[in-house]
């Protein structure tokens, strides 16, 4: 009986291990690119991160402390009570700019916004992604899930066809990762610069020859919500380097 129970427990354990074979995009990179991310003195994203740190110390530090930013990025996108919709981390930073700091909103993909977002996300580096259980987010997250499985563009591909069914395979010379958004904003070697998750999603969309959604489109926020749910528990690695 005891042996049977032990065998059952072992099976269950194996089952849970099998159920979670999720891997960060880091695992799919070449050792050279991994080395670039692993060592902060090699990672070019630190040029942006240091800039974000200075900007944060400039205006954000009037209300926030660096210590209070710890864990914040693991919870975004989160529901905003005033706008009655979910906000991504960069949108949250921008609403702070306009609502509290009385400054004009920063442009999407601007150095200033990417730097701030990177600084805030870096404060949660190593922490598990923890999407909030807020029931108001559920319909948006469900919309994101639909988009993830919806076919797009002339090539008629959904996110799931590459990143679920063919993860680990190759698209031409590049390895297809599982598509977990664990390190945004990232320094992408192809861009020779830093970009947001939405920029990456726009790349994927034009890759399948679909017309990409605009920056800040509700579809992207919904997708972001679903992706963070999908990556829940994986460690945040901002600033990540990707090929």
């Amino acid at each position, binding site marked *: 009986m005891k042996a049977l129970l032990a065998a059952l427990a072992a099976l269950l354990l194996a089952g849970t291990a099998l159920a979670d074979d999720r891997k960060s995009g880091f695992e799919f990179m070449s050792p050279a690119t991994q080395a670039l991310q692993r060592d902060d*003195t*090699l990672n*070019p994203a*630190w*040029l*942006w991160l*240091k*800039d974000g740190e*200075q900007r944060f110390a400039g205006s954000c530090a009037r209300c926030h402390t660096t210590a209070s930013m710890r864990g914040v990025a693991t919870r975004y996108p989160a529901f905003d009570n005033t706008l009655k919709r979910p906000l991504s981390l960069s949108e949250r930073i921008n609403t702070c700019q306009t609502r509290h700091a009385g400054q004009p909103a920063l442009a999407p993909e601007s*150095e200033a916004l990417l*730097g701030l977002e990177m600084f805030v996300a870096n404060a949660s580096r190593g922490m598990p992604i923890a999407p909030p259980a807020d029931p108001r987010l559920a319909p948006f997250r469900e919309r994101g899930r639909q988009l993830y499985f919806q076919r797009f563009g002339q090539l008629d591909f959904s996110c799931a066809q590459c990143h679920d069914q063919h993860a680990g395979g190759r698209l031409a010379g590049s390895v297809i990762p599982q598509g977990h958004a664990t390190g945004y904003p990232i320094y992408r*070697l192809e861009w*020779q*610069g830093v970009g947001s998750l939405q920029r990456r999603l726009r790349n994927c969309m034009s890759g399948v020859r679909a017309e990409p959604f605009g920056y800040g489109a509700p579809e992207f926020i919904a997708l972001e919500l679903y992706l963070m749910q999908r990556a829940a528990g994986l460690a945040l690695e901002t600033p990540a380097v990707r090929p």
Partner: protein
Amino acid sequence: MARALVFAPKTARRGEVIEIRALIAHAMETGHRPDSEGRVIPRDILRRLECRYDGELVFAADLHPAIAANPLVAFHTVATSSGTISLTWTGDNGFAQTESVALTVT
């Protein structure tokens, strides 16, 4: 953006070999790429990096168009005496930037 980051040890023993890493934000535009209108984007690259240790040139590198944006250069030198390590990047369109770090030798 922080324009340049220099990583070097703050202290070293006399005679110790130290590594210096210099990272700078620069587009390194090759001069061979067309823009969306088909016009060639003029070249804009860094041409040279010089490292001076208390005024003495200890390392220099010539940079060329095939080098990626935001170039990282890492090299070694021997810690001889306490002083300033200063790095100067120069490039097209009159680009010039200098960053310095202090080194204490014991």
